[in-house]
């Protein structure tokens, strides 16, 4: 392990944190809030530790796979802790573990909260909470890559570790250019959403924080009713943008380039569309008696499906009160998650697609033992290594899930609560069912459970392996 290089890169993260915290500081100035002073010592701390780290001169500047994975995992842990400090210093969230939970939930774009009353928080803290979503959505190291010429040649290791999806590829020849392009699209869409929300007469502060929550597919609301208190137009805009942000960003690249045929041929996008549409239909048919009319039911079903499959976790109504069939579909959607290369979480549509295809291949070899079949997605071959990798991912996923459920069950809540709480955190969704439903929160869990949730969230955001590598003894050996 090249510690010097890992520390150096994490120095950039601290510096980035310091700069990022200037924004909520500004918000505090605007609203004349004393809570804003909580950011000052944290910024100073970041600078004091970060600058010396950046000045480190590692002998070997090459970033290998293990350093890449470890850097990303460490960076996310550090970010969660540093980001939690303002909440703690301002005394707005008294328990330090709760602070870390809230920040990790923000950066990992989960949107699960331990706050019983969100509206009590000051503006600058609310802004910081939502802003962590926006930063975490695209990835911090990605941002660093986009603006800072990192040491060494191949930064793809960082990008692979931080971007969701089974196979991360560049869309431009240089990793730095790719990162810039992706951030460009990200910022563009966010601004677009803010404009649409402002047209709907949403206050500027609400529009910006909601857009941040949607862009990162996070789901922190600034009101206790989440998006439920706003009008239908605003809910509609949020629905559309949640879906837009859960689509592979490469699609927008193709859209700009005018390659509509490639978009049409994209199997992941097609499957995503089919899953979304059928889920909305089934849920609407199942729950329309609860609403005033069919269209109202359709509106809320569409919002909820978009919110869950994009792993945002916003809500307009308490879907915990819906019939079991609807709730079951929603829980399954949590696992599917968004498309690879988006800001969403979950297992990812493309992984499910490849798994289904490899399953059908296995079935075929039962009937035709000699048949040879490569797995193709969108006309491109998926090599066997990727399939193997996904199988390992799934196994890992199941193990972590099971272990987490067992640990959580010590708190004595219902089975539904335990399973959906783990599903909601590991898939970065936010709300689950029962106690952790849209109307509930994670406040009453024990410290141990909260730590498990924090690990789940970071595991889910970084897609397991970067976090797991931290726990492997081999990683830390010299050779």
């Amino acid at each position, binding site marked *: 392990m090249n510690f010097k290089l890992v520390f150096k890169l994490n120095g950039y993260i601290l510096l980035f944190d310091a700069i990022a915290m200037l924004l909520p500081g500004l918000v505090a100035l605007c609203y004349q809030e004393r809570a804003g002073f909580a950011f000052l010592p944290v910024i100073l701390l970041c600078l004091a530790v970060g600058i010396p780290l950046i000045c480190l001169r590692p002998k070997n500047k090459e970033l290998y796979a293990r350093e890449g994975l470890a850097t990303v995992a460490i960076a996310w842990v550090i970010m969660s802790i540093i980001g939690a400090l303002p909440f703690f210093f301002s005394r707005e969230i008294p328990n330090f573990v709760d602070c870390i939970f809230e920040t990790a939930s923000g950066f990992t774009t989960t949107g699960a909260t331990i706050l019983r009353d969100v509206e009590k928080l000051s503006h600058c803290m609310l802004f910081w909470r939502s802003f962590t979503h926006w930063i975490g959505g695209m990835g911090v190291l990605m941002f660093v890559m986009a603006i800072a010429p990192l040491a060494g040649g191949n930064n793809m290791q960082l990008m692979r570790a931080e971007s969701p999806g089974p196979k991360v590829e560049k869309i431009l020849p240089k990793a730095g250019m790719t990162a810039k392009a992706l951030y460009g699209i990200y910022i563009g869409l966010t601004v677009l959403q803010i404009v649409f929300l402002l047209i709907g007469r949403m206050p500027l502060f609400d529009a910006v924080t909601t857009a941040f929550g949607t862009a990162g597919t996070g789901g922190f609301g600034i009101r206790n009713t989440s998006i439920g208190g706003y009008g239908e137009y605003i809910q509609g805009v949020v629905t559309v943008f949640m879906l837009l942000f859960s689509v592979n960003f490469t699609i927008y690249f193709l859209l700009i380039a005018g390659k509509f045929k490639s978009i049409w041929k994209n199997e992941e996008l097609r499957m995503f569309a089919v899953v979304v549409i059928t889920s909305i239909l089934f849920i609407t048919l199942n729950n329309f008696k609860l609403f005033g009319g069919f269209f109202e039911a359709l509106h809320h079903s569409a919002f909820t499906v978009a919110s869950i499959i994009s792993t945002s976790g916003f809500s307009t109504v308490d879907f915990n009160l819906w019939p079991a069939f609807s709730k079951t579909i929603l829980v399954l959607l949590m696992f599917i998650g968004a498309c690879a290369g988006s800001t969403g979480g979950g297992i990812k549509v493309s992984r499910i697609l490849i798994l289904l295809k490899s399953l059908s291949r296995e079935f075929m070899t039962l009937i*035709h*033992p000699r048949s040879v079949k*490569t797995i193709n997605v969108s006309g491109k071959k998926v090599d066997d290594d990727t399939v193997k990798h996904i199988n390992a991912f799934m196994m890992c996923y199941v193990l972590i899930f099971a272990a987490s459920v067992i640990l959580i069950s010590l708190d004595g809540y219902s089975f539904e609560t335990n399973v959906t709480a783990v599903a909601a955190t590991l898939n970065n969704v936010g709300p689950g069912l029962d106690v952790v439903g849209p109307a509930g929160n994670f406040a009453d869990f024990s410290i141990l459970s909260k730590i498990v949730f924090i690990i789940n969230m970071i595991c889910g955001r970084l897609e397991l392996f970067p976090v797991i590598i931290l726990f492997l003894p081999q990683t830390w050996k010299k050779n």
Partner: protein
Amino acid sequence: MNIIVVGCGKVGTTLVKELAAEKHSIVVIDTDPEKLEEIGNTLDVMCVEGHGESASVLREAEVDDCDLLIAMTRSDEINLLSCLIAKKLGAKNTIARVRNPIYADGINLIKDDLGLSLAINPELAAANEISRLLRFPSAIQVETFAKGRVEIMKYAIPEGSVLDELRIHQLRTHLKTTVFICAVERGDEVFVPTGDFILREGDIISFVAPIKVANDFFAKVGAVASKIKNVVILGGGRITYYLTKKLLESGLRVKIIEIDKERCEELSELLPDAMIINGDGTNNHVLHEERIENADAVLSLTGVDEQNVLMSIYAHQQVPDAKIITKIKHFDFDDVLRGMPIGSVVYPKHITADYILRYVRVMQNSWEASMESLHRIVDDRVEALEFRIRQQSEILGVTFADLNIRKGTLVACITRNGETFTPGGKDSIQLGDTVIVVTTHKGISRLEQILDSEMGI
């Protein structure tokens, strides 16, 4: 014409033979002295030993004076290179054989830059021919004219057919069909039949007809094979690749049995909708495990002729109703194959040679009536030619009753304004027509040559 042929493998030799028979002066370039000697001994051509992409060798072959250079070596790159160099050295036209599917898309982009007149892909041509055969399972052989509007087909008259003992002019009266029978093979003999000719069972007839009429004819003689849906292909070469792509597009189910594992994986990637089986097609256990008995068509397309023949015989024995197609690469014993139950036989080397021959004839042909295509119906003995009438000529407007057409030559079909008909004595050829002529004479390249030269009009 002065023609240089670079590389005399299977196709090259076939081509040289054909071109020599048409009285062109030919120079053959090859690196193998033995092959050259063999060609030099059997054919009236000049041989030059050396590399076709070498300028000095090309100069020795007098490339500056040549009308056409045909590059037929094993390597696409050498073919393209020698065409390019020949063009720079003064060759008027060049033809290259380019068979690698990877180049298939790119070749049209660079054709003009290379000064290439024609790039021919033998495997693609063979695949097209096979896919035509599969559209008319009853026919032994199918070729198209007039941009696919007219087909020329071979059909073997089975036992107890209504065609047995029928005179040809009775086709119109008894069967009410307008198919035009242009050749009949009986044993070793070939006839260009007149109206009084009596058909017998066992005869192989060749006829020209528009697609609709052909379908109608097959229905009337009771030879309606059900439409082909399941195709089993033995061997996964390039022909298989092109063919499968075509078949999958028309909604057929294709199963490919290929022995090489790596090739299987390649095919599976290229043809995701086909089922690829890694196994030995000569192993009957594999064939039955893959339910060959449920196939509507079995195609033996491996690289080994003997294997293809044997597998086809076996397939015919196991699935008598299926359409069988056998690819023959070199094997020259057509007479032996004729009696075997191996279905339709496809010779890629002939297909390629025909294609180039057609081009050569069109090239040397005068410009008022240009030949569009040429097909050989019975080995080398009968040819069908397609002309498109673009210029005024003395032959136009004269009724067939007044035209003095050579013996052994018939006008089979005329396509005018999108309609195809068989001409009678009162019809005449008009400007803009597409005319299909069937003849036993070789070397016809202009429509006027169908007339008896001694008697004139």
